[in-house]
């Protein structure tokens, strides 16, 4: 890096000054994050080992791992766990496929590309709660756009109470998520696409590769880092899902996510110990998945970290 161009005799003194400054400049952010992330999580672990209810104000009793045992042997936890992974699996794979297609489209030269890019980006501006409300109005029985159009055309689905049945409700939740966050995946993949050099394509063209061959053998492998990165971000987000099921179904019909279950125990049932145990379990689940991702799917993050050094 450019620092190396400075004569070594002057470097060491400035090195020390730089390190000191770097420490001072980073410390405030790290302290804030430690205080507001690490301390609460530590406290959550303590709370999760106690039986404590807001109802029995102040009465706290150490119960060890009882809350965890109760959670891990309950149907509610495993149902929420399964639903969250089902949601994440469905929405992230749809977002990656659709996002890749959108990115390829946005990378083409055609009249109206900038209009397309702006339009595609619009759902990103909408807040998740509003997006949930929008999809809710579209799937209202009789008065929603989708139900209306389906029944007018005589297609199946027009008389379905979409949010009243597990499979359909899940489909609406996934659609709402795909609608709002595909632009994010598409933009990351587009950025990856634009790093691929024109020469690579020219070489493939000279070799007489078909468009499909070029896509499968050149574009996709070179896009892998960008796709993996999009997958990591989107999966972490999807596993934390809360707003969409909260607004669309309030967790009814088996659409409760891990975060929602913890919230319900904490706020609605006022069981702080159980709620904390569930939130720690959610936290651990997300952590395990991110470690697996970084370990097996993405050298990206480690490469990025290395580059920083």
């Amino acid at each position, binding site marked *: 890096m450019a620092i190396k161009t400075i004569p070594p005799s002057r470097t060491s003194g400035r090195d020390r000054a730089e390190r000191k400054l770097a420490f001072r400049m980073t410390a405030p952010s790290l302290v804030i994050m430690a205080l507001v992330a690490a301390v609460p*999580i530590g406290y959550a672990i303590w709370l999760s080992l106690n039986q404590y209810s807001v109802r029995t104000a102040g009465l706290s009793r150490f119960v060890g791992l009882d809350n965890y045992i109760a959670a891990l042997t309950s149907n509610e936890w495993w149902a929420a766990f399964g639903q969250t992974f089902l949601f994440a699996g469905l929405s992230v794979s749809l977002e990656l496929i659709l996002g890749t297609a959108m990115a390829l489209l946005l990378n083409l030269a055609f009249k109206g590309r900038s209009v397309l890019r702006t339009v595609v980006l619009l759902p990103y501006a909408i807040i998740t709660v509003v997006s949930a409300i929008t999809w809710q109005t579209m799937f209202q029985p009789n008065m929603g756009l989708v139900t209306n159009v389906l029944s007018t055309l005589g297609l199946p689905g027009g008389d379905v109470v979409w949010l009243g049945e597990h499979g359909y409700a899940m489909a609406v939740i996934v659609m709402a998520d795909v609608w709002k966050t595909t632009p994010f995946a598409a933009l990351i993949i587009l950025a990856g696409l634009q790093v691929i050099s024109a020469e690579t394509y020219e070489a493939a063209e000279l070799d007489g590769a078909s468009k499909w061959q070029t896509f499968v053998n050149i574009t996709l492998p070179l896009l892998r880092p960008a796709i993996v990165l999009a997958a990591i971000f989107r999966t972490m987000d999807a596993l934390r899902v809360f707003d969409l099921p909260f607004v669309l179904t309030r967790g009814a019909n088996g659409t409760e996510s891990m975060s929602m279950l913890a919230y319900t125990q904490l*706020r609605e049932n006022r069981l702080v110990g159980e709620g904390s145990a569930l939130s720690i379990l959610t936290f651990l689940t997300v952590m395990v998945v991110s470690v697996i991702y970084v370990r097996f799917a993405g050298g990206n993050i480690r490469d990025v970290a290395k580059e920083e050094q």
Partner: protein
Amino acid sequence: MSTLTAERPTAELATRPKAPKRRLRGESKLHPLVWVFVIAVMGFSLIPFYWLVNTSLKKGASLSQGELFPSQPTLENYLVVFQNPEFLLALRNSVIIAVVTTTVALVFASFAAYALARLKMRRKAMILTLILSVTTFPAIAIAAPMFSIWREIGLYDTLLGLIIPKLTFALPLAIYTLTSFFKEIPRELEESAYMDGATPFVAFRKVILPLAVPGLATTAILVFISVWNEFLLAVTLTTSPEARPVPVAIAFFSGTSEFEQPLGTISAASVIITIPLVILVLLCQKRIVSGMTAGAVKG
């Protein structure tokens, strides 16, 4: 604002004229099937907006029959929303929370990002990994203990009680995005400042920070949108309209009755709070694109 984007490479990620050959490779006219896809994508993106606006303009029978076009459009729902003191309070709360959080996050993050992007530092990779890992924390893991801590110390159901935890999530996002922006500023500028006898901090404040204004603005937009959008902390840590931000107010708007939802009013409220963000996206789409991709792809 837009003039500031001019020479930044990432700002033009999606449009920069680099490699025109590839882009113009093949026909500049699209295959009809590709047009079908273009139209499908546009429809998928826009139709929900249409339906939201459509619903917000309807009342009574016209609402319950789900007319595709409102036969008697009315602005009544909008009047109801603007006369609702809880909605106005929520709007005020959201503005305060988002502005304060974004400002504070930007100040601290610009320091940290500069150090991480430019200065020699021990355990840089570890610190970056730590910061990145905070972004993967599920908010519920913070919300649950915060709920208890804030009740003990009296910050529960206050604006400050929301700003502090939101800052924890805003900081890593801002640091991550800003780090990549700082890296793009030519190093020679600092070097010449050093030659003139400036200390690293002075070089940062007098030379780098002014040049980083476009990156700071982009980061501010991204942080603002994410704080404005955040729901779980907001719903866990508030209970009264005095502290509730917009997303929570709207979510509880909708929960009154299972059979007679005030869909018209909810839709009107949703349209009202969506308009400013849509305008923001229309005005700053290049910056939003560069911000979203800079942090991710460039590291």
